[in-house]
């Protein structure tokens, strides 16, 4: 039997394959490093984020007590009953209490006023960690007298110093110190809601604790034996549930803070992953060119008796090895970069971060780098199997790649599954992971399609009458082994990523800005008591300001829902709907921001008649209620049965007092309530004077200035966008490295072409112009494709997610476009210098 002939059998010598892989790689070290350099930044970004996440988790675990400041915190949204208070008084070995609410403070010296979060504190809180102040002892002494600690940003805004006075409600407080950091507070939370501490014993005298004021009650406890907390909480849980009280322990704080940071780190990891994916496209493409150049060697080895899989394994070993080196270098760089992350994220970190090398993060990064570089190299590597030995005697005898190779399609599927699995690991649901993967895939496919379209179009559109330099420059875009596809994808995706971030930021700002445009209100006065209603309106008119809207607000709870659909829902859903307080209004006509979509709106009812309320559509869906369902409301202890009469569509983008539940007039008029007044002020001076006047005359009334909100939002978005831009920079830098790699990879081919042209009489300048035209067009097209993708994506987000129109500003787009084109041309031309400077004879001789 021929098949039994020993001449037909030869075992695979693995150690020789390693030796051959090394021999083949040693003369290509710099090229192989170039390939792998594309993934270094992606791995670095991921390892930096992984390390940061590990350090953060450890510090949260170690410092959770300082975040809560106590072993147990109990929170209530209303005063607790005497019975519950008696139970609360028995808890812990040491206790403190706090009441917090939003209120205006008024600086006596310069008459400035601002909405802050007032925290009235009693006791030795925090039991763990400190309230950081300047001077440091102010945190310990402010409770002894009528003194306050004022957030540093507010102090800076009003140029105030310790020793100055502020007025809160009807009481003046001496500023004892600048509040640098409250327990668990981050830079972001200080920006959104700056804190002012005052002693609790003076709260009553401020006059701000009237009915209707939205006060949060907190009780802090320290335990000599912290292990007793869980048992005690379990024991009193039924009572707490009944009263609607929440608890926070060190463990629950660890969990909630950890969860928040997992969300942040997931976002950062996904950003890093995008950079890594870009790099991998670069690696895949470079390996494709590399294997193409190895065609002769592989064919010769096959002639000498090398099996197809042995040839494949030689290059697989190389890729595994360089992938490993790249991943290790990336991990090392990432470990260094993690020390920069706290600077970037300083406004989001609630703990003192202690940075250490995370071997787990390094291990994860190296493994990921290894897997992904091999996965992306495999499609090109697999074609090694199909290189015929005939290529050694006849060039281009047959195509080395078979597009129908099932193994190759299996690898593409593996890549897709890997991206999906990785994103699932970062995100909380398969759906989110699928959407992310699909988005990336669609972006890739669009850019792929666009680059193909470009090559097709350039081939046909460039007129044969145009100058040779232009024709040659454009021809480079579609010649064999061109880099058009890879560069369009990598540069385009980076540009799309950056532009989308920029556009979304613009959409968010615009959404708020629009609400302040035209004749819409831009200032809200709330917490106006019944007896102040007319006086506040008069003061507003005295300042020649319009009273655009004045509505009553009543705090209610849902006691019971008798809904057809709700009955079928889980007990958890029903419980969620009846928990918490609702702020509702009553009115006889709907506002211009409201539109009835189902049922009939009845604005007035007679005493004793059936009460028909109107629900906002989204809220109705949330509580599973519809027209005709019955809801019993608890209004400060009084139960009011109602029927859902209508559903409304509400334009939340309008600066208007919008409510989820609206009662008709004739029901809630006598319920405890406060009022909200809206006006429009166009002058900053009038705004400042009016706010001062309101705070002076009605200290309990708070003012929301849309200008301040815009400023805060801008600050907030700037801080967030800085983080995003930091991560996006990895993608940009990776895109650039891929570009450099692509230019250097194709340099050999360019060199031969350039030498031929120069031999035929082309000048250096002409070669330079051809190169510049090619890269200019490549850069312009890639950047344009990326910007178009970003415009499309942002438009979809604006219309379907933010419910607003999308009109991008042109100048930044033009600037980014020009910058990308410039960088691409510069990189292309600089890296082609060798092509320009090599004497033709040197190449012809070789």
């Amino acid at each position: 039997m021929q098949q039994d002939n020993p001449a037909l059998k030869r075992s695979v010598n693995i150690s020789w394959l390693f030796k051959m892989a090394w021999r083949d790689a040693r003369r290509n070290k710099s090229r192989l490093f170039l390939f792998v350099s594309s993934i270094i930044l992606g791995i670095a970004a991921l390892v930096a984020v992984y390390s940061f996440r590990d350090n953060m988790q450890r510090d949260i675990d170690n410092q959770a007590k300082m975040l809560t400041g106590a072993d147990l915190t109990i929170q209530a949204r209303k005063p607790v009953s005497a019975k519950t208070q008696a139970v609360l008084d028995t808890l812990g070995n040491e206790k403190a209490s706090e009441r917090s609410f939003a209120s205006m403070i008024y600086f006596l010296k310069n008459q400035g006023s601002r909405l802050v979060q007032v925290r009235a504190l009693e006791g030795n809180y925090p039991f763990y960690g400190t309230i950081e102040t300047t001077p440091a002892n102010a945190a310990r002494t402010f409770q002894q007298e009528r003194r306050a600690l004022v957030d540093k940003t507010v102090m800076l805004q009003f140029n105030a110093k310790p020793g100055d006075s502020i007025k809160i409600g009807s009481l003046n407080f001496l500023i004892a110190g600048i509040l640098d950091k409250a327990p668990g507070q981050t830079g972001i939370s200080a920006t959104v809601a700056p804190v002012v501490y005052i002693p609790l014993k003076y709260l009553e005298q401020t006059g701000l604790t009237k009915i209707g004021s939205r006060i949060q009650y907190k009780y802090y406890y320290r335990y000599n034996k912290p292990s007793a907390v869980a048992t005690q909480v379990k024991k009193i849980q039924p009572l707490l549930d009944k009263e609607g009280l929440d608890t926070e322990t060190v463990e629950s704080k660890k969990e909630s803070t950890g969860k928040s940071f997992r969300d942040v780190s997931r976002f950062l990891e996904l950003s890093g992953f995008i950079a890594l994916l870009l790099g991998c496209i670069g690696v895949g493409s470079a390996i494709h060119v590399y294997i193409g150049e190895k065609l002769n060697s592989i064919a010769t080895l096959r002639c000498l008796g090398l099996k197809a899989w042995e040839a494949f394994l030689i290059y697989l070993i190389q890729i595994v090895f360089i992938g490993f080196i790249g991943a290790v270098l990336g991990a090392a760089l990432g470990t260094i970069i993690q020390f920069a992350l706290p600077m970037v994220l300083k406004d989001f970190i609630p703990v003192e971060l202690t940075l250490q090398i995370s071997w787990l993060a390094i291990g994860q990064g190296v493994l990921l780098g290894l897997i992904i570089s091999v996965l992306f190299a495999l499609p090109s590597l697999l074609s090694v199997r199909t290189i015929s030995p005939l290529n050694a005697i006849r060039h281009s005898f047959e195509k080395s790649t078979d597009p129908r190779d099932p193994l190759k399609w299996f690898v593409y599927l593996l890549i897709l599954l890997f991206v999906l699995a990785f994103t699932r690991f970062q995100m909380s649901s398969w759906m989110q992971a699928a959407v992310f993967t699909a988005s990336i895939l669609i972006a890739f496919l669009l850019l792929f399609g666009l680059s193909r379209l470009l090559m097709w179009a350039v081939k046909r559109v460039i007129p044969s009458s145009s100058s040779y330099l232009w024709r040659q420059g454009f021809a480079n875009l579609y010649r064999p082994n061109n880099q058009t596809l890879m560069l369009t994808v990598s540069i385009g995706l980076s540009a799309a990523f950056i532009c989308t971030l920029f556009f979304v930021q613009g959409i968010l700002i615009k959404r708020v800005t629009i609400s302040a445009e035209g004749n819409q209100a831009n200032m809200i006065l709330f917490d106006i008591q019944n007896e102040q209603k007319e006086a506040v309106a008069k003061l507003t008119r005295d300042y020649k300001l319009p009273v655009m809207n004045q509505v009553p607000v009543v705090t209610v709870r849902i006691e019971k829902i008798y809904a057809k659909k709700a009955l079928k829902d889980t007990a958890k859903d029903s419980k969620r709907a009846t928990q918490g307080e609702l702020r509702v209004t009553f009115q006889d006509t709907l506002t211009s921001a409201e539109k009835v979509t189902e049922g009939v709106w009845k604005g007035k009812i007679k005493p004793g008649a059936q009460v028909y309320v109107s629900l906002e559509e989204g809220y109705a869906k949330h509580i599973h209620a519809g027209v005709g369902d019955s809801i019993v409301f608890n209004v400060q202890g009084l139960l009011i049965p109602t029927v859902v009469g209508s559903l409304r569509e509400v334009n939340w983008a309008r600066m208007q007092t919008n409510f989820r539940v609206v009662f008709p007039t004739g029901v809630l008029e006598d319920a405890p309530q406060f009022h909200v007044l809206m006006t429009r002020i166009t002058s900053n001076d009038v705004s400042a004077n009016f706010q001062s006047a309101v705070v002076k005359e009605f200290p309990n009334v708070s003012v929301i200035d849309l200008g301040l909100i815009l400023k805060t939002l801008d600050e907030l978005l700037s801080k967030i966008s800085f983080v995003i831009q930091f991560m996006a920079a990895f993608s940009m830098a990776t895109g650039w490295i891929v570009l450099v790699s692509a230019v250097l990879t194709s340099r050999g081919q360019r060199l031969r072409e350039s030498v031929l042209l120069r031999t035929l009489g082309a000048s250096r300048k002409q070669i330079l112009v051809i190169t510049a035209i090619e890269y200019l067009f490549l850069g312009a097209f890639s950047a344009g494709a990326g910007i178009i993708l970003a415009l499309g994506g942002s438009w979809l987000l604006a219309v379907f997610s933010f419910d607003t129109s999308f009109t991008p500003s042109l100048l930044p787009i033009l600037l980014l476009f020009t910058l990308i084109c410039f960088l691409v041309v510069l990189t292309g031309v600089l890296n082609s210098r060798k092509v320009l400077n090599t004497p033709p004879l040197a190449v012809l001789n070789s």
Partner: protein
Amino acid sequence: MPSENILHIENVSKIYKSAGKELTVLNNVNFSVEGGSTLAITGPSGSGKTTLLGLCAGLDRSTTGSVKLNGIKLDELTEDQRAAVRNRYIGFIFQNFQLMPTLTALENVMVPMELRGEKDIRTHAMDLLDKVGLAERSHHYPVQLSGGEQQRVSLARAFSNKPAILFADEPTGNLDAETSEKIEKLMFELNRDAGTTLIIVTHDLELAMRTNRIIKIKGGVIISDNPNATR
């Protein structure tokens, strides 16, 4: 001394399909080659010489017919089995040398032996380089060698696995006359010493005249198959 046939080609045709059309490159070719003999295959460009060489050496499959090398029917083998046959019985010399650019001269010569899993091959490889006069250049890379030197390394590599049959595809096609002469001399010397069967594909009639037998091929068909009367 000629012995039994080492290569037997029977009714071999090769047809390529391109753009829906069939192109017959070889048409019903028959011949046999005795072990230890030398044979030249000549013919104009596009006559099918290189295709025939590829089929004889097991680099490709014929469309019809059979190729038997050293008693093994190559058409019935998988590509990996044919690779094993090439490694064990065949040596190659190419027109453009086909040395691995990333391997030194010595390593290039060692490769066929390494593939067979042979041990202590360095001395044998150095001996071969010495025979072709390149012992001093053993650690040089192909790019550091002249064309003639590269072809000498290629010769050393071709003989390194003591092949039963050596296929040379235009071995002097890329060399000047003087270097060609040296390479031809060396090739025939090594062939004689090793007792290898030599099959040369060439345009060069002078080179062809140095073999025992000349097959002329044109349009994919053998037009003459004669012993070389001058030898």
